């Protein structure tokens, strides 16, 4: 291991902004994409259920 302390780890040899910026952005994109797919699914299921429910009550 090449880190003597936690602060040295977070400093990334002076490249903190670039290294943490890259990893942080990637993590954020992954998080947002998965949450979007989940909310899309919930929204879809809700609209389908109300659609089918109204069909059944009207017929």
């Amino acid at each position, binding site marked *: *291991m*090449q*880190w003597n302390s936690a602060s040295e*780890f977070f400093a*990334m*040899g*002076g*490249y903190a*902004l*670039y*290294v943490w*910026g*890259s*990893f942080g*952005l*990637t993590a954020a*994109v*992954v998080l947002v*994409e*998965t949450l979007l*797919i989940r909310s*899309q*699914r919930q929204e*879809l*299921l809700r609209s*389908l*259920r109300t*659609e*089918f429910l109204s069909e059944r009550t009207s017929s």
Partner: protein
Amino acid sequence: MSSQDIHWFKFASPQNFYRLAGRMWPLFATLAAILAAIGLWISFFVAPTDAQQGEGYRIIFVHVPASQMSMFIYLVMAGWAGFGLAFNTRLSGMMASALAPTGALFAFLSLVTGSLWGKPMWGAWWVWDARLTSELILLFLYLGFLALQSSIDDPRRADKACAVLALVGVVNVPIIYFSVKWWNTLHQGASMSLTKSPTMAAAMLWGMLIMVVAFWMYTIAVTLARVRNIILDRERHTEWVKHAVE
């Protein structure tokens, strides 16, 4: 038709694929999480400091996988689109549509992480270099695909128009890949090669390979999860969706 043929095409129907994808995506998501954890550990704690770039080179562990996926997803997307055009299968267009947003995100990540790497190493956020410019065109191709799709109301017609766009755009992928050989670029050459022995430390290479596989698993998981949404939406007037939802 022999029984084997029937078996082979079973999952080509959206109804069966919906169920298969529902069983498969959690598996790929779990694999992605495990591999990403191992890959990140190697990225930060096992891979040594680079002799020239110090700790700044660690961006490679997200930049290379994101760039590779952005190109590979395009090829797979165009493959599905071409298959759909040739055989008029419904699922193909849905798969192409499910891949496009993830491909666009990886192209975006490739450009931004590359920019964050370029600034400290080259002294510039952006240069009009062949590699960078062709990757930017890839992002525009993805955005064009998504825009074209949302502009056509009939999904089957949208699939066909998008398939043509995707196939024409394929020409850009080898241009990106070989740009570092064909032109004098500021961008460095290939980090991974099948024909040459690796020039970097084994831990760096392993970290990168594991991250690439993790990104693969992630892509498969989100594509399967997204295609389920697309299938439900497009098949909303069928009986099986009614049963599946209730």
